[in-house]
């Protein structure tokens, strides 16, 4: 696939996900941004395949399940590190959160870590990089269980 067609496909996916500001940006800025995002998605696919054996297809997900696919193409997700993109993909497949630690220290180090539980009971660990990865916190589903009214974090969604 040519560079242009990848960029076109990506642009449509980003706009479909609700990021309507993109076409209003200058052409040169759009091209640079789309090129960077395309490279980062490629790096995510490569690393994911190395770890888990199969190659994720975010464009395919957007086509078959747009409400879930949109979550991947929102900027909060696209700007994340490879590590956190992998975590998002695992959540979209069906992992659940087991623990989330967010330690903010105005005079020191800020840390964001996640422990996921796979449907097979294994635990996976992910560490976010300051700033670029913290936007994912906006996309977590949160609710209270019934009847015990326990706070739970569940799923990863397109909130726009």
């Amino acid at each position, binding site marked *: 696939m040519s560079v242009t067609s990848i960029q076109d496909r990506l642009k449509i996916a980003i706009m479909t996900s609700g990021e309507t500001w993109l076409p209003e940006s200058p052409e040169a800025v759009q091209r640079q941004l789309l090129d960077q995002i395309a490279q980062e998605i490629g790096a995510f696919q490569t690393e994911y395949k190395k770890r888990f054996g199969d190659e994720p297809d975010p464009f395919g997900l957007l086509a*078959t*399940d747009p*409400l*879930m696919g*949109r979550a991947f193409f929102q900027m909060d997700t696209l700007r994340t590190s490879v590590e956190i993109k992998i975590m998002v993909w695992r959540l979209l*497949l*069906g992992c*659940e959160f087991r623990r989330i630690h967010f330690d903010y220290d105005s005079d020191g180090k800020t840390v964001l870590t996640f422990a996921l539980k796979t*449907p*097979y009971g294994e635990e996976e660990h992910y560490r976010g990089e300051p700033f670029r990865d913290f936007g994912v916190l*906006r996309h977590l*589903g*949160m*609710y*209270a*269980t*019934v*009847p015990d009214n326990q706070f739970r974090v*569940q*799923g990863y*969604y*397109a*909130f*726009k």
Partner: protein
Amino acid sequence: MIGGTDLVFWIRDDVPAADVILRTVRRKWPDYVFQDADDPSMPSKSARGWLPRPSGREFFIYYDLAAARSWHEDGATSENLNTMIYVVLGNRTRPAANLRSITIVCGELSGEMRALMDEIQMSIMDITRSMRGLMEKDAA
């Protein structure tokens, strides 16, 4: 129709209701069995593993494989009534308000089934509230 209780509620058309419903049911029914409504075959295994993606708007979720078999072989009985839910997503819409319906058909709305239905509604409402909050923040 399977009889029982029809619950109908309205949600924003961009809420991923199938994902929310499947995750919530999976937590309560870990050995659940999933079946697309247009798939006439007898489900052969538990859906344990990655979340299924419904191929259409209608699907069944059974408590476990024994429940799926019972529904297939005997239909609704007094014993299996509360071991299956039938979900219909968006068969009705209110386009002006960007809303679509969710219909969940279940057995008797009491005990564990009542808790399951309440939790599904609660989780969808909470996610909708989160989405609305962020939209309002973006618009500000």
